[in-house]
């Protein structure tokens, strides 16, 4: 589909048009953090950096009711939770976060066991991306098969070219949002493309592509004795990771009614794998750090054909003891 063009000053008008038939979410500054917020006319956007919280929360909430029940030990009624069917447009999605959904789809939308809770939210949501012209210091998407102007998982991609946006409709749903915009010139496209090259060049490269094969033979490697040493096991990395998808399932009940609920969980917690018998296959921080790295760079590639890291850098920014996944990638890459 041909590139379109939108003058920057006309963006509020376009968002306003979308908001007539859908809920529009866009990055905004709140409590000194940038996060997605409902957009309304006059709202100020914050498009300077990616959101603090990952996009997965829209589709796989931190805490989510799976179904409701009422009754007692003899009789019970089970009912699905009413899903909010409101059409949603998310504006300003960064290519790394869009890719994270393409990866999560491989888990939640697998053909044999489709997760209907996730699927309903995916189907009602259109993703409008914003290419990254100025990667942050923690960004490394190009090392994990991503791209600052990547389109995987997006319905539309916007690229900031100065006074205007180059707008690329990518899917039918995207075309429906931006189809009426005027077509852009080859000159606009060339400018967008140059900005992409510049952004790519700004990011250092780490040898992540060698990890899937290499790690297959490294389960017992001595490197795991070191990497975990300063880790506190707080799991902030997992909670902010756009591809981490582990969850716990629990019942929240009063006497005759309640819900089954899933909550984000993490392999960094020692109780995560504790058997009822008291046996625990992963008792040490070493084993848990190994699990986290192996899952992202070996197990997920084996099962789903891609590294489960999109290079967003959130874990690098949030880690209280400065564990830097890029250094881990480099260290493993250097192992002979």
């Amino acid at each position: 589909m041909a590139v379109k063009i939108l003058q920057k000053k006309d963006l509020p008008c376009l968002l306003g048009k979308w908001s007539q038939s859908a809920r529009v979410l866009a990055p905004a500054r709140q409590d000194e953090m940038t996060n997605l917020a409902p957009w309304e006319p006059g709202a100020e956007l914050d498009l300077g950096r990616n959101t603090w919280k990952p996009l997965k929360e829209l589709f796989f909430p931190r805490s989510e009711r799976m179904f409701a029940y009422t009754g007692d030990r003899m009789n019970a009624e089970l009912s699905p939770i009413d899903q909010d069917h409101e059409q949603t447009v998310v504006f300003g999605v960064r290519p790394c976060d869009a890719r994270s959904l393409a990866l999560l789809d491989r888990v939640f939308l697998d053909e044999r066991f489709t997760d209907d809770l996730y699927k309903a939210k995916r189907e009602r949501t259109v993703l409008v991306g914003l290419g990254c012209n100025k990667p942050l210091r923690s960004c490394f998407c190009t090392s994990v098969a991503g791209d600052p102007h990547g389109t995987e998982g997006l319905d539309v991609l916007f690229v900031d070219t100065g006074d205007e946006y180059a707008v690329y409709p990518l899917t039918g749903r995207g075309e429906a949002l931006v189809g009426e915009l005027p077509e852009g010139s080859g000159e606009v496209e060339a400018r967008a493309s140059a900005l992409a090259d510049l952004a790519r060049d700004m990011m250092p490269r780490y040898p992540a592509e060698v990890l899937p094969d290499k790690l297959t033979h490294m389960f017992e490697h001595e490197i795991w004795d070191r990497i975990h040493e300063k880790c506190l096991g707080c799991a902030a990395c997992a909670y902010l990771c756009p591809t981490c998808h582990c969850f716990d399932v629990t019942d929240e009940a009063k006497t005759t009614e309640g819900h089954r609920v899933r909550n984000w969980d993490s392999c960094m917690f020692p109780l995560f794998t504790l058997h009822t018998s008291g046996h625990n296959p992963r008792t040490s921080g070493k084993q848990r750090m190994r699990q986290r790295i192996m899952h992202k760079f070996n197990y997920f590639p084996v099962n789903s054909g891609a590294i489960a890291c999109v290079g967003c850098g959130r874990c690098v920014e949030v880690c209280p003891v400065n564990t830097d996944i890029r250094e881990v990638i480099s260290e493993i890459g250097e192992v002979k």
Partner: protein
Amino acid sequence: MSNLYIPHKARIKEIITETAANDVKTFRVVFEDESVWDSFQYRPGQFAELSVFGVGEAPISITSSPTQKGYLEFSIKKAGEVTTALHYSAPGELIGVRGPYGNHFPVEIMEGKHLVFIAGGIGLAPLRSLITYVLDDEHRGKFRDVTIIYGARSPGDLVFKWELEKWEKREDIRFYLTVDRGDETWTGREGFVPAVLMEVGPSPENTIAITCGPPIMIKFVLQNLEKLGFSPSQIVTTLEMRMKCGVGKCGRCNIGPRYVCKDGPVFTYEQLRQMPQEY
């Protein structure tokens, strides 16, 4: 909207106390809605997620066989919250069942072969599904000699005693029952399961060994089977692991890249040897 996580309603019809300490019970349950059977076609070795509403959900192996129509059986040790709640339930109460999940014993590969079952304690529960299937009139002819070695710590810890008596009487199986230590009324064999396995000394030729029990028993059974000449591909076992969703999403039951809920719980020893020792 359909929902993967909403269980089928099922009612407890019968509860059998298995052990003297009253810590293992077998629950026979039936679906409230009979049409559920259309989507609940299971095979020996698979498991289900059982719900006690308000308490939670736990993965439990199906101990009945698909040859037993109209009901499911689960033999459950009282251990955590859900299993304790089940132990305090009575016939007539409602529970939730979703599944069947996981892979199954390689029944087709076992056809035409001798089978040696080696079980310890409640480890007999998942094997019983396959044993019942193999011993069923419709299937018995497809398999060669059947040997069962079963043991527990004490006579009071043996499960399915009501069924063991039937197995002892059958002429088409070799059945060896043992306890680690007998009591004053015990007139049977005493000795550890791995030692009894060596006494029985099954030939590995055209044979598959299926084993389940406590980790220490498994360890020595595997060693002894290798001494008897069994290759790792001839040895089949079934694993348990902390598990929540049962469908490969919640991320906690993996051993290396393999998920016990989807790729298992049944693995050959050959497969296990290729997986990291983290279970």
